[in-house]
């Protein structure tokens, strides 16, 4: 270490960040019977939509309700509807979504609203469970770990769908979720698909039954809005198609039904 100064350090990080005009931001306030409230927010080069919402809470409307945690796109807490599309806001650069300097921010669709921009995600996770979205062990901690080739087709299929951050964006984008209360939705079915491809899982039969009930995989009409909007690039459509195929095979071979 060569530095020995003990003076009060120079002011660090005081650069204000380049400001490039303002944005007009309409934000949903209240619950179902709410209204839009309009704010003028300084526009800076590196802002994300979450930064805009945070600015409003810190500088204009202290009681504004919204949710976030990780700030980097791994927790899936911060999803909102931005100019009509569901998005993760912490990773959505304003420049990508603002239309003529205008943003309209609403809570996520297809989930009960709590207040302002926060929704209740309970139904989302209940459906995750209803799709048997959990591992069914066949071994215990005292058994050796399973040997699984990383290049097997099943492992690859499971890998392709596993990095879901359960943000609910696909759930909000899917119109079948809106039309059919029973529909489990793309995220839950996507999880079920990773499980039927998990060679270690002991719940394949229950899993396949769970997604074959009314509101299961057969309710999906391949709109593809889930794939279109999933922020981490997962493809629930593909997994759901796989489940449909598997259920059919099950029916034809008399395995299920």
């Amino acid at each position: 270490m060569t530095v020995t100064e003990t003076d009060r350090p120079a002011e660090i990080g005081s650069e204000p960040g380049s400001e490039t005009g303002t944005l007009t931001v309409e934000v949903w306030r209240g619950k179902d019977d709410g209204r839009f409230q309009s704010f003028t927010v300084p526009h800076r080069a590196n802002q994300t939509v979450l930064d805009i919402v945070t600015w409003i809470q810190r500088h204009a409307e202290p009681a504004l309700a919204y949710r976030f945690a990780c700030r980097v796109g791994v927790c899936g807490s911060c999803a909102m509807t931005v100019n009509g599309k569901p998005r993760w806001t912490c990773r959505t650069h304003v420049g990508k979504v603002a239309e003529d300097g205008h943003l309209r921010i609403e809570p996520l669709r297809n989930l009960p609203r709590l207040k302002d921009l926060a929704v209740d995600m309970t139904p989302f996770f209940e459906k995750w469970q209803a799709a048997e979205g959990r591992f069914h062990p066949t071994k215990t901690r005292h058994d050796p770990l399973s040997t699984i080739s990383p290049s097997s087709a099943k492992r690859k299929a499971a890998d392709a769908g596993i990095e879901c951050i359960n943000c609910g964006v696909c759930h909000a984008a899917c119109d079948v979720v809106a039309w059919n209360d029973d529909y489990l939705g793309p995220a839950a079915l996507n999880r079920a698909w990773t499980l039927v491809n998990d060679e270690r899982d002991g719940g394949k039969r229950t899993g396949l039954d769970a997604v074959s009930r009314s509101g299961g995989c057969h309710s999906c009409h391949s709109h593809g809005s889930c794939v279109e909007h999933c922020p981490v690039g997962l493809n629930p459509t593909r997994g759901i198609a796989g489940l449909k195929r598997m259920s059919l095979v099950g029916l034809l071979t008399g395995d299920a039904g």
Partner: protein
Amino acid sequence: MIEVRLYAAQRLSAMVLAPLVIAHLILILLAVEGGLTAAEILDRTRGSVGWALFYGVFVLAAAIHAPIGLRNVIREHTSWRGEVVDKAMIGLGILLFMLGGRAVLAVVVG
């Protein structure tokens, strides 16, 4: 599981319909030239076992395929749910099959 069965029936009927519809479309495009006459149609179909089979299968597949499709549409866009829809759709299937069967008989047998 009813949903799997309906799904299977719908997709299988669609697979049957696909080539038939392609043939049907080609036929339409060739036949409509300068307008349709009954004689043209009936000349082709009367007494033909092949066309009887073609249209017979077509009708059967459509009578299975369309009601299952409509069931989804009704359940998703109306507040009509449950057994009523199912019964209505079975009714529709039977109706389609009977009307279609009569049409096939008409053009094949006369």
